[in-house]
């Protein structure tokens, strides 16, 4: 109790030092005056009385000093003194300090960069009150995987019945066109309920949010809220609000600007624009529209809904009330709500889905990535521990003197730790900059490949600064404590006599060598992991879906963005294909509705007529034109391609399937001529889409995604049957690709200068810009970077130890040379010594590396964790680096002259 009280009282006085000093001065002055009076009363002269008083008092300055020590926190004072001393020591050995700070900055930088991403994914606070929102989900408990989004009328009814939610918002995403030069750029837009911004509790950066009138179905008031980034691009022009903005083919008025980094209910997904529900029908692109319904259609379940519960309501209580609400909705609107139950669940930070999602994915990713970068920091710490040990040996005499003068061991350990801490904090500052820089670099390469814009802010926030500081303090303890304890246990007499360095080391394989062995082991692990990822990335670079990219061009058009309806759009596509096919140099041209290895895939269940679907996952569903297979280079194995008439007449129901689907559905029969159908979903009534189709052709399987190891099932139907907004024209050309690309561009513009072309590049370029490829490459780059860093650090470690050993053994080497050993023999002896260290490190590291590879193998693209190239190359590179790091000091050893060596004594 008393120590606590003393501490509190001391702490409180820390902040009142000056006033307390003045009080003490006054008290002492008073005391002295009284003493002087006393002495004068006894008959001394004023001057003598003053002298006598000072004598009695005994050192005013010393009293004040002791008093202040007692008053202040002696601990803090000492700490400040230690820090000053540490800075002086660091300045005295600038080379050593620079290397330590650099090594640490690299280690901490790697961690800080990694943590920037983890922070953005898991920890960075959401916009406004978004973290208080729960997702509202609708499903039929009797049917598995029956989660669906909500219709606008249902949302409006639930919002009106507010016994559960304080606030309820609805939103959906869509793609609109933004004219930019001769292509129509796609821009990612969120269509929201009018209370979206106010309910999330974010203030507008400028202008206003949406009004209830703008939300009303059919209102069609063309207003838009722009992102902060757009306003920034406009130079924060005060007249920005009120400007018009062309979206697809129509002008909208900007009425507001969203706050900076606003990402709705998520941490990442950042639309460029927000539109009110009232313009839904005129804006929303058909891919995202369910059943073709409008906003007022209760069967159009197109909207995500999230809400903030009434204060004091738990999730369970809310779900109980929602059950009642669901039953009411079912009674009122049985057709759309039969069997459907509403529930609330926490929202995911990173994705938007109609079913409840958790954030375990990003959490697992973080849990894998952080230890990997942590390993680099670990190596850095081992390295620095080693350097400190070497330096400590050099400082042994200084320390021995301090011990001899009565400096306690704990006091010296504290001093040494403070020195480590000062270096660590300097390293942390460097690491923070380095981390900021690398993550900004990584982000810059990510933004162009994302299908949706994201806010990933690389600027360090408090979390990152705290984490970095924690890394540094952890590092300081890790690399400072052991050396501090070790070098403060000196043999006092020997050290004072300066004999310490002259004694031949009894154990050659000492602490420092073991530290290097550990470094080698850990760097082998990181290099192997890095190597596996790089091999994967190299493979992913040249991967293809099942046909070659050479001479293949891609031109994607989205007539809907130019205001064309379905009939006009199909006519434009036909015209474009007709013109391209007769261009010189074109071998074949055809279009489909989704590009393999692209960001968007559509799939559907398919079955033999009247039966339920069998096996595996949903086959990919692609609409294609004639000649598509010819253009990409997939042979029709049996049967035929679609005919031109089948593209014009949607009542001619035909289909082409690929081998994987054929073997799944017709394992023992000839699939040609067989009938199949797309069964209706759940309880929905059958439509024309569910009419039977006849199989007319079989094609080879292809992969849709980089991650798929095997071709998966595909169903192809003529592009007439269901219409898809974006069509991808594949053009197979002979001759120069870039010239042909320019020619295709000219041809499309000549045909219709208003036709929105959303993508125009070679297939290889399209592949190179894939998001998944980016992830694989980024993983390869990051891990290789960590591996290279580890290698560099381990080499520095080996070099340090070997230099030290050579320096220590100078006398021994001198004697050997004097006795007739040749320089080559000396070098060989030193190299063998070094090789021992390397080999022990490799022997420990190799099994660990294989284990790490197996652990990471799920994330590695198409490379076995036992990849012989990587498993052979990584140790060889390490051996080479270690040999070089050993050779340099060994060469110095070779040149030791016996005379000099013996004179050292």
């Amino acid at each position, binding site marked *: 109790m008393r120590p606590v009280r*003393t501490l509190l009282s001391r702490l409180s006085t820390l902040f009142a030092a000056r006033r307390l000093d003045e009080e*003490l001065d006054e008290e*002492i002055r008073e*005391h002295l005056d009284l003493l002087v009076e006393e002495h004068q009363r006894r008959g001394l002269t004023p001057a003598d009385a003053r002298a006598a008083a000072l004598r009695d008092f005994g050192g*005013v300055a010393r009293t004040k000093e002791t*008093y202040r020590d*007692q008053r202040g926190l002696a601990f803090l004072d000492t700490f400040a003194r230690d820090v000053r001393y540490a800075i002086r020591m660091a300045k005295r050995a600038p080379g050593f300090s620079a290397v330590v700070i650099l090594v640490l900055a690299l280690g901490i930088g790697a961690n800080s960069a990694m943590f920037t991403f983890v922070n953005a994914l898991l920890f960075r606070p959401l916009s406004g009150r978004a973290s208080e929102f729960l997702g509202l989900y609708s499903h039929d408990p009797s049917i598995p995987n029956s989660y669906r989004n909500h219709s606008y009328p249902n949302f409006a009814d639930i919002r009106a019945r507010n016994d559960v939610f304080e606030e309820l918002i609805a939103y959906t995403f869509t793609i609109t066109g933004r004219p930019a030069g001769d292509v129509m750029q796609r821009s990612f837009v969120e269509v929201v309920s009018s209370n979206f911004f106010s309910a999330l509790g974010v203030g507008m950066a400028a202008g206003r949010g949406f009004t209830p009138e703008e939300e009303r179905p059919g209102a069609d008031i063309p207003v838009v809220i722009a992102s902060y980034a757009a306003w920034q691009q406009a130079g924060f022009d005060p007249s920005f609000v009120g400007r018009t903005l062309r979206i697809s083919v129509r002008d909208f008025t900007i009425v507001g600007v969203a706050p900076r980094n606003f990402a709705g209910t998520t941490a990442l997904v950042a639309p460029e624009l927000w539109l009110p529900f009232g313009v839904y029908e005129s804006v929303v692109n058909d891919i995202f529209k369910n059943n073709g319904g409008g906003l007022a259609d209760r069967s159009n379940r197109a909207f995500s809904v999230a809400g903030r519960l009434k204060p004091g309501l738990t999730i369970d209580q809310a779900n109980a009330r929602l059950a009642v609400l669901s039953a009411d909705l079912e009674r009122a609107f049985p057709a759309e709500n039969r069997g459907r139950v509403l529930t609330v669940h926490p929202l995911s930070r990173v994705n938007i889905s109609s079913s409840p999602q958790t954030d375990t994915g990003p959490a697992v990713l973080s849990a894998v990535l952080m230890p990997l970068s942590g390993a680099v920091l670990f190596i850095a710490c081992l390295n620095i521990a080693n350097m400190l040990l070497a330096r400590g040996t050099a400082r042994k005499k200084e320390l021995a003197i301090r011990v001899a003068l009565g400096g306690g061991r704990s006091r010296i350990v504290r001093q040494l730790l403070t020195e480590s801490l000062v270096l660590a904090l300097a390293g942390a500052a460097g690491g923070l900059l380095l981390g900021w820089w690398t993550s900004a670099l990584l982000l810059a390469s990510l933004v162009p490949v994302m299908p949706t814009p994201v806010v990933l802010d690389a600027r360090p926030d408090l979390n990152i600064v705290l984490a970095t500081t924690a890394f540094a303090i952890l590092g300081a303890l890790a690399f400072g404590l052991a050396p501090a304890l070790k070098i403060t246990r000196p043999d006092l007499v020997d050290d004072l006599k300066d004999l310490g360095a002259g004694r031949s080391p009894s154990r050659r394989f000492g602490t420092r060598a073991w530290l290097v062995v550990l470094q080698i082991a850990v760097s082998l692990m990181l290099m192997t992991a890095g190597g596996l990822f790089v091999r994967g990335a190299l493979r992913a670079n040249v991967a293809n879906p099942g046909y070659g990219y050479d001479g293949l061009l891609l031109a994607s058009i989205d007539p809907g963005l130019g205001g064309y309806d379905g009939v006009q759009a199909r006519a434009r596509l036909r015209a474009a294909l007709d013109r391209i096919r007769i261009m010189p140099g074109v071998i074949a041209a055809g279009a489909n509705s989704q590009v393999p290895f692209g960001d968007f895939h559509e799939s559907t269940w398919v079955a033999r007529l009247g039966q339920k679907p069998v096996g595996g996952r949903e086959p990919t569903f692609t609409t294609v034109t004639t000649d598509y297979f010819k253009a990409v280079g997939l042979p029709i194995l049996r049967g035929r391609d679609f005919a031109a008439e089948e593209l014009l007449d949607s009542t001619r129901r035909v289909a082409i399937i690929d081998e994987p689907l054929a073997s799944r559905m017709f394992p023992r029969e000839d699939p040609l001529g067989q009938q199949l159908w797309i069964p209706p979903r759940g309880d929905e009534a059958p439509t024309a889409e569910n009419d039977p189709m006849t199989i007319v052709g079989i094609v080879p399987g292809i992969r849709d995604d980089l991650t798929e190891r095997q071709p998966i099932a595909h169903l192809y139907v003529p592009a007439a049957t269901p219409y898809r907004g974006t069509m991808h024209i594949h053009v197979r050309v002979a001759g120069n690709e870039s010239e042909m690309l320019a020619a295709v561009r000219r041809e499309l513009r000549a045909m219709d200068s208003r036709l929105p072309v959303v993508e125009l590049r070679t297939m290889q370029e399209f592949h190179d810009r894939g998001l998944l490829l980016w992830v694989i490459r980024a993983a390869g780059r990051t891990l290789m970077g960590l591996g290279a860093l580890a290698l560099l650090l381990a080499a520095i470690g080996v070099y340090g130890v070997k230099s030290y050993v050579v320096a220590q053994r100078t006398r021994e080497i001198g004697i050997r040379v004097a006795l007739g050993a040749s320089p080559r023999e000396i070098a060989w002896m030193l190299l063998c010594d070094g090789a021992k260290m390397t080999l022990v490190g490799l022997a420990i590291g190799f099994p660990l590396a294989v284990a790490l590879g197996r652990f990471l193998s799920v994330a590695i693209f198409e490379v076995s964790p036992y990849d012989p190239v990587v498993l052979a190359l990584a140790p060889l590179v390490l051996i080479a680096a270690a040999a070089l790091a050993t050779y340099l000091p060994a060469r110095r050893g070779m040149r030791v002259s016996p005379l000099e060596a013996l004179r050292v004594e």
Partner: protein
Amino acid sequence: MTPPSDVPYGTLDLLVLKTLRTLGPLHGYGVARRIEQMARGILSLNQGTIYPALLRLEQQGLITSSWGTSDNNRRAKFYAITRAGEKHLSTESRQWARMTSLVNRLLEEDA
């Protein structure tokens, strides 16, 4: 005559507490004078050392201090013993008595 020795470590606190207990609230000068009078010829006391001791006791909550006016109308800081201080004084005095008697017994045996 042997020269006066320094105040044994830790006993100054006890002397201060005892003084305040006996005489009531006093300023630093008063405490120092009193101890000096009592100890004349036995202990040499640098009066300055009284101040860190007073502060230490205050930090431990054994005494309190307040600014007031001395007999001759000058501002002075007065120290007074607290209840915790009195309790501390009585335990410490008993402890002290036990220690000295033990030391005495040992010394006498030896003689």
